[in-house]
């Protein structure tokens, strides 16, 4: 009975599969095709083989953008995951601030990245910005957020932390919530102090959640477009030009090289695939 009823379960999935193909697979395949061409807006272009890929790997600006992206992503992981863990630990011990803080944390999370970038451009404006005004009261600054390479990168980190903290905190809180209470009790009775309880009980339990959190933040950060686009403009010079911004500029500014931009995207995608595969293998081995 049951067998015959479920003989073609896939046919019920067809509408969804069709939709997925339309919005996900099709653009991906088109981008892939694009990456082997010299297309530009309005001109379909010709097959050029691996030329775009070879060019990207030899393009110092692309390599620079890629490693700038990795730097930004690594920083974002460190700040977001670290602060998320810290806040989750605070909320676990102190119930009262939790509700209010959660609302406040969630607000920036629902904002669009572009809006976040614009808010932080105002907040970090060199003259009349909130941060510099505050720092000025202590006799610091004004700090050149736009024109100093590390400060510009710092402004990206700040903005992404502000926006992404809720996500990391929620993940860590979920991880902490699944930690059995009596394990902590047992460690207390065994005479463990707080650092030892964290090291021996909390940390091993959270490790998997932290790793997943780190991977997600890393992958999302590496392809961030709106933040550098609207907050720093990729500057000063190319100091905050992340891969997505350079690809965008290759496609829609200057020479309008759609094929070259697509090839850059494909290279980042390959990097993603390798990274994710490594992560999953590592996870399986430690499980």
């Amino acid at each position, binding site marked *: 009975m049951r067998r015959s009823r479920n003989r073609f379960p896939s046919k019920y999935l067809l509408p969804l599969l069709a939709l997925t193909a339309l919005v996900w697979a099709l653009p991906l395949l088109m981008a892939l095709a694009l990456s082997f061409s010299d297309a530009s807006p309005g001109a379909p272009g010709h097959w050029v083989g691996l030329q775009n890929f070879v060019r990207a790997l030899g393009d110092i600006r692309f390599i620079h953008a890629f490693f700038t992206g990795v730097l930004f992503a690594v920083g974002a992981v460190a700040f977001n995951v670290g602060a998320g863990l810290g806040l989750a630990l605070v909320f676990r011990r102190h119930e009262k601030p939790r509700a209010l803080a959660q609302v406040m944390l969630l607000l920036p999370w629902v904002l669009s990245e572009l809006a976040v970038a614009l808010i932080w451009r105002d907040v970090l404006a060199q003259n009349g910005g909130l941060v510099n005004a505050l720092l000025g009261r202590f006799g610091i600054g004004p700090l050149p957020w736009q024109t100093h390479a590390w400060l510009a990168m710092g402004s990206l980190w700040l903005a992404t932390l502000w926006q992404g903290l809720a996500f990391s905190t929620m993940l860590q809180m979920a991880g902490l919530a699944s930690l059995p209470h*009596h*394990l902590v*009790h047992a*460690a*207390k*009775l065994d*005479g463990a*102090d707080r650092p030892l309880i964290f090291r021996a*009980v909390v940390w091993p339990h959270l490790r998997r959640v932290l790793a997943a959190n780190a991977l997600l933040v890393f992958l999302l950060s590496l392809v961030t477009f709106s933040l550098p686009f609207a907050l720093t403009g990729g500057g000063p010079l190319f100091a905050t030009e992340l891969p997505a911004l350079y690809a965008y500029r290759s496609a829609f500014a200057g020479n309008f090289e759609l094929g070259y931009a697509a090839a850059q995207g494909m290279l980042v995608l390959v990097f993603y695939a390798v990274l994710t595969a490594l992560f999953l293998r590592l996870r399986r081995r430690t499980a």
Partner: protein
Amino acid sequence: MNEIALVMREVVKRFGAATALDRFTLDVRSGELLALVGPSGSGKSTALHTIVGLHDPDAGEITLHGNGLVGVAPGARDVAMVWQDGALYPHLTVHDNLAFPLKARGKWGEKAVTHMAERLDLLDLLDRLPGELSGGERQRTALGRALIRKPKLFLLDEPLSSLDLPLRERLRTLIRELVRETSVTTVYVTHDQAEAMAVGDRVAVIRAGRVVQAATPREIYEKPVHEFVARFFGNPPMNLLDGCIEDGHVVGEWGRLAIDGGENGRTVRVGFRPEHAAITGEPTGLAATLRRVEYQGHETIAMLLARDAELRLRLPDGEALPNIGDDANLRIDRGNLHLFSADGARL
């Protein structure tokens, strides 16, 4: 008699409107194994948690060898505990679990670990993680982790509840042996009356946050101070009949039973254990209809009805029984009768 090690005096613990411990008072003697038993929700675990310091009591006093425990950090109380599921550190091997309490206190010695592993038959499992152990192996490791640092007080919270019956009996024996060898003062929490009787030097019965009776298993069984205790111990449970005292008898619709003295006209409840009634040919004050017989090998459980009152008898195998549906006369020695007042207290 040994000196008193643990004293809990009038301990009160409330959770919101609910009172978990209601002037809970209990003495535990040095080196004894006290079984704390009661139905679920009676406050057994809360009592343990106030001893180890996971809850602070709202009122009352807890002392261990004369030193107050309230307000002392859990790790500084020199108390060890075993949980129902073992609460082993899942990322540490058996060896590291055993060594953890010593390492945490900076008193690590490989010898102690080896010795404990040997005693608990864990030597072959030292490199395993808790997830790779059977339920019994996990609990043995938990016992070792608790006892390795020679605590002053050893607490067990339903340590065998998640194990199957044969394993439970073996571990019960092991726990008794360990307590005797180390002469550590022990409180063993269980909801199982048979386990409490089997394991405890003494048994404390808790009901609604108060200790009703604390005594040896024999005393608990033979002289329950409260109807609740009488009902709680023994399987099948004690037979209880409502009645009124009239001229040296308890009289009810079910018949009459002779007792020693008693105040005429008083409403009471009379009880007797299933093994204390005999079926006899001569007429007695208590006749009941045989409804069902359960053969159990060494004994037979007979279910009878005396008017509306249901009675259970435990009879040695081979005892002649009337046919189902026929009446039987029951004889119970007055020495085996238990009298309780209307509010449940023993008379």
